[in-house]
């Protein structure tokens, strides 16, 4: 059975790109455009993995990750980010992120990272 993935990114373009990369191998359970939607979607869909942008409106991806992992300590969240700052990465890990990929990403990097976080 295919693993279930949710995508949270405020950019329609990046959501499309990620969906295109993932849909052959995973079941996409939904998409969110901000941190609040991401938390709600996670609670509703309970995916195996959440792909989470850091910079999003209303609530950032780090804040959303913090809430998701507080509610579900087993949650697997991969930060998908254009921000490569060391301090931001430390914050993401502290919030409970399991891994990260840096934009712009290519299919092999995304699949490798997911495989590292939830081995097939």
């Amino acid at each position: 059975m295919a693993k279930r993935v949710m995508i949270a990114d405020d950019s329609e373009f990046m959501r499309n790109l990620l969906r295109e990369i993932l849909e052959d191998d995973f079941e996409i359970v939904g998409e969110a455009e901000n941190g609040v939607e991401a938390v709600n979607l996670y609670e509703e869909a309970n995916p195996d993995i959440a792909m989470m942008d850091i910079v999003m409106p209303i609530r950032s991806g780090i804040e959303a990750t913090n809430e998701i992992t507080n509610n579900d300590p087993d949650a697997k969240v991969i930060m998908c980010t254009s921000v490569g700052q060391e301090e931001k990465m430390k914050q993401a890990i502290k919030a409970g992120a399991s891994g990260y990929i840096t934009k712009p990403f290519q299919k092999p990097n995304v699949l490798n990272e997911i495989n590292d976080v939830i081995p097939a």
Partner: protein
Amino acid sequence: MKVDIRELGQFNHLASEGAKQAAKSLSTLAGIEMDVAVTDVSLVTESVLAETFAERSFVGVELGLQGGLEGETVLALERERALILQELLLDATDTDYSSEGSTLAKSSVTELGNIMIGGFIDGWANHLDTAINMTPPRYTEANGPRILPNQAIEAAKNHGVFLFESKLSGMDVDLDFSLYMLPEYRQFVQLLSGNDQGNQIPVNRLSTFEELAKEGAGNAAGQIGMMTGLDTNVDVSRLRFVPLSGVPKQVGNDQFVGVVFELTGLPSGYLVVLFDEKSAITIANAMMPGDSTEDEIGSMTEGAIKELGNIMTSGFIDGWANVLQTSIEHSPPNFVHDMGESIMSPVVGKLGQQQDYAFVIDSTIEIDGNEGQCDIYALPNERELARALSALPAQD
């Protein structure tokens, strides 16, 4: 407030790395190879912003910064280039889209801008050993300088604003464009303050020097007009801070005719006056007495360009010497006729023995409408210039 020229060099280096990261991102996303020709930074006034962005339509990606660096920043590129990028991005991802104005098309450029600005900001944050938070990017469209955040325009009116410009060019596709980045002025100046007095320049003296450069270019344009009877106009004049190694690339591979002068005094350095070949012949013929003309670059053109260069250079540097209250001499003209890069390489090679970065005064004079062009590059020794500017009496 003072800026340390070494810090300015460090931030220029970081911006250059950011631009390379941006070019790499573009290659990954759109599948096209881009090269970063040069990244420079200049303190620009409202009038220079108006000249730089004049009469062009831009697409911008604007976002706010909080934390280690605050303010609004924008990545701007010409609208027609943005449309090419949109097409490349959507084609590369096999995305169906209905029109160039669709939200998805705008989203593609917004995300690209976000990634590119991220490349700049990451380097700065890591250098400052702090986190810089970015707000979500916002897509904007406007003509001229209105593409810039209001606070940047206000800062330019009041004291100037730092403008980073990176020139990117496609290696396997005909796509050249500039990226413009404007950090918030006051905080950025604080970051540049450094602690070595020998390298510090009061920031308002940079504006003074830029004004001086502009006057110098105006004088030079007037002298061309007087000696040839042709209409002249200063098109652009900017004081840029650039890595010396990038200067030859910036001048480019076109053939130029001109003169190189070595400057001695305070500051020492070099001044290069370049004409495209057609302009050089036009000017030389206009300067010849009677009916004598040349169709190619010959001895008469060489003599005329040397003479004109001599007079222009004196007009250019006399203003510096008067305001800086120093004495500056120039060598006899060294005539050059070669590719731009080949002319500039030995000049930056000599200056590069003492410094890695340089303040370059880059002025373009239009001759006879758009028929011809003259570029003047002044490269003073940076430490000597810093010393001379710092020694000026306080103005405020």
